[in-house]
């Protein structure tokens, strides 16, 4: 969550709770309940590494809040983030290992493994569909995130199908 927080701060100074709300609004229900504690911990680490700076602001009748802003080093880190491309998603390597090794162990049947895994993916797919239906249709970022997850899962399911065709 480090870099997304830096990216939010590129727009201007903000305090932790604001950042949590910004993330929530941007990503909608596709983002599982941003944990405010995690946001504060990450901000602390970013400050320690000099990428952001916090300033205590006094509030009457409430505890002080800390407003963070991006440092030059932070802006540089963000620029570097945008320079590089992201890693490809990885093949489900744990499942693949189970499948590849199953015949040698004599403990599991490959087709039964595939069926079990497919059930789980289908249930997740169903939950994603429900999430997409429940989410605000106008939140394009959130809808795209869910659609991306569904397309990945579709690919995993297609691959299970290939495994089943080959191994049956």
């Amino acid at each position, binding site marked *: *969550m*480090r870099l*997304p927080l830096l990216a939010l701060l590129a727009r201007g100074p903000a305090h932790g709770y604001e950042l949590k709300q910004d993330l929530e609004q941007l990503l909608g229900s*596709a*983002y*599982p309940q941003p944990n405010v504690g*995690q946001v504060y911990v*990450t901000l602390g680490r970013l400050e320690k590494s000099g990428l952001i700076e916090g300033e205590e602001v006094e509030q009457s009748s409430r505890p002080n809040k800390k407003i963070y802003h991006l440092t030059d080093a932070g802006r540089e880190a963000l620029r570097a983030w945008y320079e590089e491309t992201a890693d490809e998603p990885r093949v489900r390597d744990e499942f693949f290992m189970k499948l590849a090794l199953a015949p040698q162990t004599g403990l599991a049947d490959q*087709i039964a493994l595939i*069926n079990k895994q*497919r*059930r*789980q*993916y*289908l*249930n*997740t*797919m*169903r*939950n*994603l*569909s429900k*999430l997409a*239906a429940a989410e605000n249709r106008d939140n394009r970022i959130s809808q795209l*995130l*869910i*659609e991306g*997850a*569904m397309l*990945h*899962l*579709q690919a995993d*399911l*297609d691959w299970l*199908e*290939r495994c*089943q*065709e080959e191994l*049956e």
Partner: protein
Amino acid sequence: MNAAADPVPGPHTTSDPVPLLRAEGLVKTHYGEGAPAHAVRGVDLAVRKGEFVAVTGPSGAGKSTLLHLLGGLQRPDAGSIWLDGECTDGYGEARWAVERRRRIGIVFQFFNLVSNLSVADNVELPALLAGVSPRQARAERELLLDELGLKDKERSMPGELSGGEQQRVALARALVNHPPLLLADEPAGSLDSKGTREVTRLLSRFHQRGQTIVLVTHDARLASAADRVISFFDGRIADDAELGGAPSRAPGISGVLELKD
């Protein structure tokens, strides 16, 4: 859809003992050039009223043949099909054609609309063929097209519509006689991602109102709208899974979407 117009004798429950559709020992082999293709190799299946069942599997697994057998579009080499408890062994072509107007609605991958009839006429035709009065047919058509967001396309010809719109017309046509069973053969097979979502949404909506649906698809997104998914491989049922049971302990959605620190 139109519950008030449905003469339902007494309350019916979802745990109805007689399945709406039952198949036993279905076998179908295609003899063409080359080796015979064993499309369906011994399938037993029961679909209860109100169920939404998806059949998925690789192309060539025989899932479309299975659907065609269930709709009487092809006849099995062996095995039997019961509609609402009634054995269809003795049905001829004509009887199946009647059932496809009354008890079974079908949508296909390539829509199969009558190209020289308007959208409105395409939807009204099966109602008129089933002996519904022209007035009633028009009323049903208006209701459905309105519901499917096609009110302003009534006078269009099928060729003037997008794929997604044509599939919605096909859906209206399939449902105009309130068939208890809807069969869908790759209904999103020639649609883009947006069209697929649209069809998924509509099938879910009709299902929520009690429509029984059997869907054949290779699209997992569409299949996951169903509450039961049958995996079909090499002419046989490889797995038959109820979806939406107890939430699994697996990371599931949040694992897919979570931002990692």
